């Protein structure tokens, strides 16, 4: 179990490295090597580390532990075929953690990043509409039941393509350098993680690796179903490459536009789910 957790962390970091590499190649830059995020994690864990004077010491450190802890829990819940609602609850919790990162530092850049994390929670709303649509068909929120449904009725990506698109938009909003990555906008330096350097940043890198793996694994299990392990890894890489194309070709939206676009997606999804409910 622990070996899979460590593998997931490193593979998630590798996926983020592939993401950076593909974006760079699309933009005609050489880009970093694909294992750059893994090197980052090791590099940060070796650097001199302390807690800034302006920071709230307890929250500053605890929020890193919580960030890794919640994604470790999410990883085990997906593995056990647990409830989709808990996974999405953890997505929401991650927003609060990001907010905690920003506020604990005492830095204005961190605080603005934290506030933007809360604004970008708008990206989670299509998620809940997607869950409603999935429940209409599978009659269950348990990932194991959703997988069992797909073994009989075929992958949900063909049954509910629009829902898969909405969920894909949620995945985009979680990827760095994307159109909805307003929490990491350059005018905020590094946003909520500006003051978390050294060992704290290494912890955050581990959280990001694990988060990426869990997010993509959930997407594959919910919309494609149970696949062999090697195929799951290939599918994850393919999804990341498609995400990289979108992130490389779309400029980062302003916070207002980001929320507007996500609200419009939610509105379309609500109409779609209402139609499905009426037709069923």
């Amino acid at each position, binding site marked *: *179990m*622990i070996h899979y*957790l460590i593998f997931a962390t490193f593979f998630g970091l590798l996926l983020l490295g592939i993401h950076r590499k593909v974006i760079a190649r699309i933009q005609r830059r050489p880009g970093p090597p694909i294992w750059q995020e893994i*090197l980052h994690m*090791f*590099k*940060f*864990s*070796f*650097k*001199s*580390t302390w807690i800034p004077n302006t920071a709230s010491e307890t929250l500053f*450190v605890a929020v*890193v*532990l*919580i*960030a*890794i*802890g919640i994604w*470790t*829990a999410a990883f*085990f819940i997906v593995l*056990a075929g647990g409830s989709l609602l808990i996974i999405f609850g953890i997505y929401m919790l991650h927003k609060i953690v990001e907010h905690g990162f920003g506020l604990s530092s005492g830095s204005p850049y961190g605080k603005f990043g934290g506030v933007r994390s809360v604004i970008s929670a708008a990206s989670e709303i299509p998620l809940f509409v997607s869950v409603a649509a999935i429940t209409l068909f599978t009659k269950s929120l348990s990932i194991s039941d959703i997988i069992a449904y797909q073994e009989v009725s075929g992958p949900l990506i063909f049954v509910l393509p629009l829902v898969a698109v909405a969920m894909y938009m949620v995945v985009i909003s979680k990827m760095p350098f994307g159109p909805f990555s307003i929490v990491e906008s350059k005018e905020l330096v590094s946003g909520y993680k500006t003051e978390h350097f*050294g*060992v704290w940043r*290494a*912890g955050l890198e*581990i959280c990001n690796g694990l988060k990426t793996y869990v997010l993509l694994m959930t997407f594959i299990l919910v919309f494609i179903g149970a696949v062999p392990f090697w195929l799951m890894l290939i599918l994850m890489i393919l999804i990341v490459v498609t995400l990289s194309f979108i992130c490389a070709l779309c400029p980062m939206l302003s916070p207002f536009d980001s929320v507007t676009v996500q609200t419009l997606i939610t509105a379309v999804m609500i109409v779609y789910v209402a139609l499905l409910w009426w037709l069923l």
Partner: protein
Amino acid sequence: MVLLTGLAGIAATAIWVLDLIPSLYYEALLVVDFPLFVLSTGIWWMARERDADIPFLGY
């Protein structure tokens, strides 16, 4: 702390492999132990004031 959390992780894995605790307890322990192990390892490994803080010189 590194030793403590590392040993706790190894002990929990051993007990779980021997089927002495249910998977749920093992996973709950890892949720607490893994973040503590990661951070304590980093804090133990990090460069002190007098050390160079870039380990990958030349890369």
